[in-house]
């Protein structure tokens, strides 16, 4: 059938839309807001979200991590810039009465697992070694891009850890720990390799403040859900699912983040006030002495949202001619499908040719012994006949 193709010039129509966009981008518009927009100095955002606990009764740690994942995605960081590590599978666990869901509020109000989730490290892959390799970038060459933290010196990184911890360590999967010294050294490696511009570290475990005590690299801000000697408590159980759904600190953090939208102006001082002792029972702590900017001037969206610097251009780009493929010399031979179970062929199959290896030491020694015995018995006069 005749095919009619025609190109429509809709550039004219597009221009009006374009000018609207320009307007919107500069509707940060006012002088001081523009100043704030450019003062953070970062060009891209990354997030590393780690849940370190295994087993069904640690459902709340997976729900914690997924709620932060959900907020971070909603505020603009794409999946390619998020490294999500979940140590166990709760959604499709056989004990979950509602499969493919992870709830954060009781009565199953909010499904934080959703329909569009990409987990990069799961199950047994969540180990201390993999976590440190992701942070420092020392991964084997065949690691796919979705499993790498490809940040540069203008990236703002959000790191969120949750699980069971103690004074100075965080437990990974019930079998190993990471200490606060290792973590501080990993951040120092990141600083020396220029892998971050600013880093926000949030930890929700028991005695979480001990994990940021040892940091010594610049531009780090840290928040923890409890001080040394205190336990972080969980929020509420759901009687249908049978386990506690969230930890208190992350529950109130999620409520706080639900009010943030990509253009909001809330700063870090509001984040420090999340979950006071009356709600959390433990005392959340924070550390800002290593951070160069004043926390009051740091926007929440600097870490939880994503900066998209859009440059709009009116130029046209000429596409080069497509590469002509080497047009098949028509294959004369005819293809056919292979027989799936060729019984006679299989029965008469020749054994696989094994690679030839030079004879073993044992074989050589055995032959030497046989030759020696032969010549001893029958005398050396036979030697000249052989050689």
């Amino acid at each position, binding site marked *: *059938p005749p*095919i*009619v*193709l*025609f190109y*429509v010039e*809709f550039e004219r*129509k597009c221009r009006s839309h374009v000018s609207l966009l320009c307007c919107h981008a500069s509707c940060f518009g006012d002088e001081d807001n523009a100043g704030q927009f450019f003062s953070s100095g970062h060009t891209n955002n990354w997030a590393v979200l780690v849940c370190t606990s*295994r*087993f069904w009764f640690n459902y709340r740690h997976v729900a914690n991590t997924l709620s932060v994942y959900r907020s971070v995605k909603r505020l603009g960081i794409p999946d390619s810039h998020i490294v999500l590590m979940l140590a166990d*599978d709760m*959604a*499709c666990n056989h004990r979950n009465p*509602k*499969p*493919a*869901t992870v709830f954060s509020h009781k009565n199953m109000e909010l499904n934080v*697992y*959703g*329909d*569009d*989730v*990409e*987990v*990069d490290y*799961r199950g*047994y892959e969540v180990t201390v070694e993999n976590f440190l390799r992701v942070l420092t970038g020392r991964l*084997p060459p*065949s*690691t*796919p*891009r*979705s499993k790498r933290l490809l940040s540069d010196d203008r990236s703002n990184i959000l790191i969120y850890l949750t699980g069971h911890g103690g004074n100075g360590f965080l437990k990974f*999967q*019930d*079998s190993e720990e990471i200490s606060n010294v290792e973590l501080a050294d990993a951040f120092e490696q990141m600083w020396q390799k220029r892998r971050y511009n600013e880093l926000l570290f949030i930890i929700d475990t028991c005695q979480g403040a001990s994990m940021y005590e040892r940091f010594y690299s610049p531009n780090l801000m840290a928040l923890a859900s409890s001080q040394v000697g205190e336990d972080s408590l969980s929020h509420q159980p759901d009687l249908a699912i049978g386990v506690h759904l969230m930890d208190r600190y992350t529950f109130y953090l999620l409520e706080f983040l639900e009010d943030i939208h990509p253009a909001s102006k809330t700063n870090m001082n509001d984040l420090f006030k999340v979950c006071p002792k009356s709600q959390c029972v433990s005392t959340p702590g924070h550390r800002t002495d290593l951070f160069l900017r004043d926390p009051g001037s740091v926007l929440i969206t600097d870490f939880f949202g994503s900066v998209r610097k859009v440059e709009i251009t009116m130029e046209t780009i000429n596409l080069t*001619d*497509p*590469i*002509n*493929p*080497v047009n*098949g010399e*028509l*294959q*004369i*031979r*005819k*293809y*056919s*499908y*292979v*027989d*799936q*179970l*060729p*019984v006679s062929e*299989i*029965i008469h*199959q020749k054994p696989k040719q094994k690679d030839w290896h030079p004879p073993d030491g044992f074989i050589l020694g055995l032959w030497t012994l046989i030759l020696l015995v032969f010549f001893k018995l029958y005398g050396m006069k036979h030697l000249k006949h052989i050689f």
Partner: protein
Amino acid sequence: FVFIMRCNFRIVLFLPPGLYKTPGRKMQIWLFYEELVIRPLHSGDIYASFQFRTVWETDFMRGNKVSHYRLFPKSLGQVISKFSVRELHISFTQGYWRTMQWGQPFQPSPPGAELWVWFQDSVTDVDGTWKELTNVLSGIFCASLNFIDSTNTVQPSASFKPLGIGNETDHRFLRYATLPREIVCTENLTPWKKLLPCGSKAGLAVLLKSEKLFHSSFHSQAVHIRPVCQDWQCKTTSWELRQTLNVVFDLHNSAQGKREWSLFKMFSRTLTEACPLASSSKIYIDITDNPQGEQFEVSPATPLLSQAVVLGDRRTFSVYDLTQQITFGTVRSLNLLIRWKSSEGDMLRPLLHAERYVAGYGLQTGEIHTLMYNNHPYRSFPVLLLDSVPWYLRLYIHTLTVTSKGKDNKPSYIHYQPSKDRLRPHLLEMLVQLPPNSVTEVTVQFERALLKWTEYTPDPNHGFYVGSSVISSLVPSIVAMDTNSTRERPLFSSFFPCKEESSYFVRVYTEPLLVNLPTPDFSMPYNVICLTCTVVAVGYGSLYNLLTRSFQIEEPSPGLAKRIANIIRKMRGVPPL
């Protein structure tokens, strides 16, 4: 045919699915088909099978730079050209297919993840390429496929012949691996849906909602890439990508015990349109057991009927063509309803099915039993059994026995590759002739190995998995199979190529095994360190102190009264008390 949609004064181009010509190139052909087959099962459950097929005439071999991807996903195209892949089959399954209750599936798959790949002849280092390929696929499908390494990869010598076209089959280029422990959840479905041309926005993929799909007895999604014949002459090849999703919904979980199924009940969605890029978009409902409508009733009724020979049986299907606007009726949405009236009738017994279990007691030895059932009354047929057992179960092959009906049954072909600790698993392949109406039992004894402390998983008391056995067979068929591979056939009947009319190829997977290995007490190193340090501190420490400390006699400090008295005496110049 150019479709113009006007909305908000914007003109959108719709290119016809099928032919597309760029200036200066030969005609490129892309085709996309989608179909859904619904088969009601005798136990009241319902089996739904989605198939999405993309055919693309191009040449990935011979180093051609392919840069224009239209319906074929770019991530897979780049994988094929970079790793010189001839065929790739990967499947993710949750649950176990119950052959005796549900019959044979259209595409069989073992529980967990399974990956088998045929590489091109041009690949020099197959093992290195295999390792890189598994890493890349683990990133594409968000699965832990990077755990596939030499300890669970085998190279079958007779099973898994290529499903696509090809003239040579050198088994050096085949690799097969399974991960029985792999979990399947929404994070695997999300990238799978993104490979479809219409995504999950239009067509049959709209029904793929994870909350319903994973609340089922069986869920399996797979990707199959292979070269196929372009036309009946078969002189040129094109690449075919098939994405299949099989799901069995349970009567009590999803339908609350009532034998009434509808698209809305199964998927919580109804259909409103076909994928605009699809050449054909159809729904088939299997009504073979319901010729006069006495068992169940399907609404809305459709005049279209189709017959196909699938799995050795001639089945009749009601067809709903989604590319016709009339299918959606006046409400512009299609919600198929299947209501049962009576529940009689037996199911056709499957001719071949298999079971496997571990026998024995204790944590030292055990026995693996594999049972293969041939339910045909008078025909026997050959069966190829592939067993891949991890190295930590040390098989004693001299105890291998194959018995049918009480008598020894010698296999006509055995290929055994012993394992190497921490390097290679056991591989056992046997060609066994199953006598008619019998059970064949294969037993082999094994011994459990003690692993090193760091090789245990974080939850070792769960047990260790042994992958399913694969049984490939040519089963005699009741009706003549269609050997003409290029005639227009529904997708579900054209998966396995058919060479002869009297039998069809079937692959059956057994259950995976879960064995407990002797597990040490992981707190022992800590206990030992504590005890040793305590003994050293108390025993040696006190001895050292006794030997090296010097003792001085010191007067205890006097009381207050004495101190005042001493001060007064000092003032007086008298020696203190």
